[in-house]
């Protein structure tokens, strides 16, 4: 299989490799070493003891089970919407896109409370069913348990599928579909025989990310599953924090990483047989005018489903931030600007926003610095080393936040890397979660461009640098922009990685939300909702900003 102009040299990814080694490999090695030294004589016996325990079997089993289910459900919910989005021209497309992006930034506690306000046994949907539909008791009981976990995973991960697949699809060449249509192919044939096969690389990549995300799920399973459920990630946290049994935590961490490796091998196998996707140079998209009544109805149906499922929880959150028992009032937002108790740790909404945006900006820069070269390298190499590099740069995603956080503590404790307590570790830990996403978004896009145009340009005598700077990057700019906003949002909402890093007084918005929710009192809850709305607002601005960037960039590229 020919992958692009030539086999790229390893030097392309020198900087990403160094960053990965320093900020991932080194702390992981340090924590694993310390963990296994702690209990010197435990040895292999201990490994067997843990691997044969009921806790382990259960946690691994449930992690896998819910991750598979969550991935299938997310694909089932998101793909029809994405296909509709790609194929048809209809009003409100931009809003659908925005709606799919927002859930990603919200902290789990906030999503859980929004979900309960809607679907809970005392929530709006049940009240509606009891009052207007004649039910005697609440028909849904979605407070806790597997259904609540699955719903939350679909809610969060729809944006992953949307970002990857719609971003990839927007670059596809529409001439294939046009000719199929002019030959009289039905919509069904266009979708199943042409579009889906073309989208396959991005669909598998999205499935991989969603699966890994759910496999390592912590907050969602903890809060919405309830105490009867557990994943490997939760057990790692418990062994580390509650029992301080680091050897056990280290073994579980390794198992989690090992599983990621295995899933990844499957992914690579699937990915191998993809046909090269024809890419469009202009990026005009596939949108076709909607003709039949059936299609129009279908679009309305999916639009409503998205609004109901993704929009309503967000709406209930916004309402929660302005609704008090005395009616609508901006009191919670006003209160954010006051510090009546004169606490040193009070954070003004302005500063929380500045910190959040600053960290997210830094994290985005780091993840693009790693992600773009790695994706470029992966899309133009076919050697035996390729899968190794590919897997290497996926590992951080499935590494337990508490293990890595504790690794930082041990690893960075003396100059020149005396970084403990430094703010740089926060965006760095965010970037470690974000850049695997960047790589997965960019690889299929770069491949699509380079296989078609790269070769042609090379034949015409263009240098590798020219091919990338003048052809591939400009054409794949939509994907690059998508990856940028994606990593920005991952960092904005990230709390898990932050929670286990000793950090100075640089509160981000999620940290502020947690602080409010850790004390009783109606003001605290209202302020937490108000802060969450600010988080949504920043996301909306970030989204519009990137849209604007995409709109201005082509002019520069053509000059």
């Amino acid at each position, binding site marked *: 299989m020919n992958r692009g102009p030539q086999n790229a040299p390893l030097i392309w990814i020198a900087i990403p490799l160094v960053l990965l080694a320093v900020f991932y490999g080194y702390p992981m090695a340090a924590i694993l070493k310390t963990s296994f030294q702690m209990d010197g004589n435990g040895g292999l016996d201990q490994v067997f003891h843990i691997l044969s325990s009921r806790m382990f079997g259960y946690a691994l089993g449930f992690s896998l089970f819910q991750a598979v289910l969550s991935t299938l459900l997310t694909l089932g919910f998101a793909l029809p919407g994405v296909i509709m989005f790609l194929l048809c021209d209809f009003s409100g497309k931009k809003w659908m896109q925005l709606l799919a992006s927002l859930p990603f930034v919200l902290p789990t506690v906030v999503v859980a409370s929004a979900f309960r306000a809607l679907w809970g046994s005392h929530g709006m949907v049940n009240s509606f069913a009891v009052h207007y539909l004649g039910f005697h008791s609440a028909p849904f009981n979605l407070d806790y348990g597997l259904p609540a976990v699955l719903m939350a995973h679909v809610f969060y991960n729809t944006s992953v599928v949307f970002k990857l697949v719609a971003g990839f699809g927007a670059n596809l060449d529409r001439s294939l579909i046009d000719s199929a249509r002019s030959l009289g192919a039905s919509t069904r044939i266009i979708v199943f025989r042409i579009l889906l096969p073309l989208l396959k690389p991005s669909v598998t990549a999205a499935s991989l990310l969603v699966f890994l995300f759910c496999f390592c799920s912590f907050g969602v399973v903890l809060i919405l599953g309830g105490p009867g459920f557990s994943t490997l990630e939760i057990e790692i946290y418990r062994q580390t924090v509650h029992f301080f049994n680091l050897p056990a935590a280290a073994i579980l961490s390794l198992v989690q990483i090992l599983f990621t490796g295995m899933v990844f091998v499957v992914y690579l196998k699937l990915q191998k047989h993809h046909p090269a996707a024809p890419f469009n140079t202009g990026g005009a998209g596939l949108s076709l005018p909607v003709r039949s009544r059936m299609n129009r109805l279908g679009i309305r149906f999916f639009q409503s489903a998205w609004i109901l499922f993704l929009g309503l929880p967000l709406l209930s959150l916004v309402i929660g931030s302005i609704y008090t028992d005395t009616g609508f009032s901006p009191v919670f937002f006003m209160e954010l600007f006051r510090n009546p108790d004169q606490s040193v740790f009070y954070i003004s909404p302005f500063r929380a926003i*500045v910190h959040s945006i600053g960290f997210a900006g830094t994290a985005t820069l780091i993840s693009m610095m790693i992600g773009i070269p790695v994706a470029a390298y992966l899309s133009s190499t076919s050697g035996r080393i390729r899968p190794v590099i590919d897997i290497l740069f996926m590992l951080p995603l499935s590494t337990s936040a508490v293990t890595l956080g504790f690794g930082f503590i041990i690893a960075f404790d003396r100059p020149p890397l005396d970084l403990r307590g430094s703010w740089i570790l926060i965006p760095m830990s965010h970037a470690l979660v974000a850049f695997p996403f960047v790589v997965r978004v960019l690889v299929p896009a770069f491949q699509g461009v380079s296989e078609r145009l790269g070769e042609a340009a090379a034949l015409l005598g263009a240098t590798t640098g020219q091919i990338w700077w003048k052809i591939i990057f400009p054409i794949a700019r939509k994907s690059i922009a998508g990856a940028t906003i994606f990593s920005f949002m991952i960092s904005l909402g990230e709390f898990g990685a932050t929670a286990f890093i000793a950090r100075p007084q640089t509160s981000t918005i999620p940290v502020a939300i947690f602080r409010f929710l850790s004390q009783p009192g109606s003001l605290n809850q209202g302020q937490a909702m108000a802060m969450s709305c600010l988080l949504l607002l920043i996301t909306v601005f970030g989204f519009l900003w990137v849209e604007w960037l995409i709109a201005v960039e082509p002019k520069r590229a053509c000059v």
Partner: protein
Amino acid sequence: MKTMITSILCLMVTCGMATAQNPVLELTVMTHDSFSISKDVLARFEQENAVKIRFLKAGDAGAALNQAILSKNNPLADVFYGVDNTFMSRALKADIFLPYRSPNLKLIAEALKLDTAFRLSPVDFGDVCLNYDKAWFASRNMKAPDSLEDLIRPEYTGLTVAESPATSSPGLAFLLTTIGHFGENGFLDYWKKLKQNQVLIVNGWKEAYWGNFTAASKGSRPIVVSYATSPPAEIHFAKTALKDAPTAAVTAKETCFRQIEFVGILKGARNPEMAGKLIDFFLDKPFQEDIPLQMFMFPANTTAALPDIFVKHAKTAVDPVALDSDRIESQREKWLEAWADSVLR
């Protein structure tokens, strides 16, 4: 591409400016996420001693302590605030604290001094106990609970929400309460009966209180495991001034677990002398009187005056259960396993 990079660079610079700190003589305090202190109280100490105090927050109490233990060869901080009595034995066994006998220890309640070598000095305490929704019980003419046994009576079926001791610190405290009250042989029976009585177990305090407690949410549970100081917090953080708290705490004999928090100087502190002064300050009146409204805990210093809201609305446990810290550390995993086996599975 260029616009994108420039914009991100601008953001980074803004962030760098916002987080830059000027170098002075610094003392670092490592603590958990719930720690708080008033600006003026801290400023007075900083001015009097010409020192800058830097706080490092490192997750919940357990996570923060474990990080301190892991970094003991080259400590992150000079002082650690917030080891509680459920983790005390772990902290002492790891040998990370320097003994320090603060002159202010004489002002501290005797019952709280659990470490006889004074590596850890008691600084505040709080009682984990049942809270109930006053209006809920009043409107049904029902007697509010006043013992652990009440919760397993038939008329209290489906009324209680508690946190899982496996993932939550008030949850663990409540499990310890039942162990202290019913004994190591009796507590599982009690939990089985609680389970039959449809107790709802959720993962943490936020879920229990904000998600299910009738007084704080649209929940359906009028009894929750929380703190004895939650009712005054309800008043303090109310949207509109309240005369009385909507909730009340059950503080009867052997219904509560007392969490005692300690502060200590970390071995290898760069400036142990100044760290000692900081311990004196933490035990002294100004900071001790700041504790209630900042952290909703009680001061350990017996001479500290309580704020009005605490005098009127806060109660302390009459006779909280006492469990030895060594026993908690050595039995924790066993108790949690046994609990999970009989309640969750």
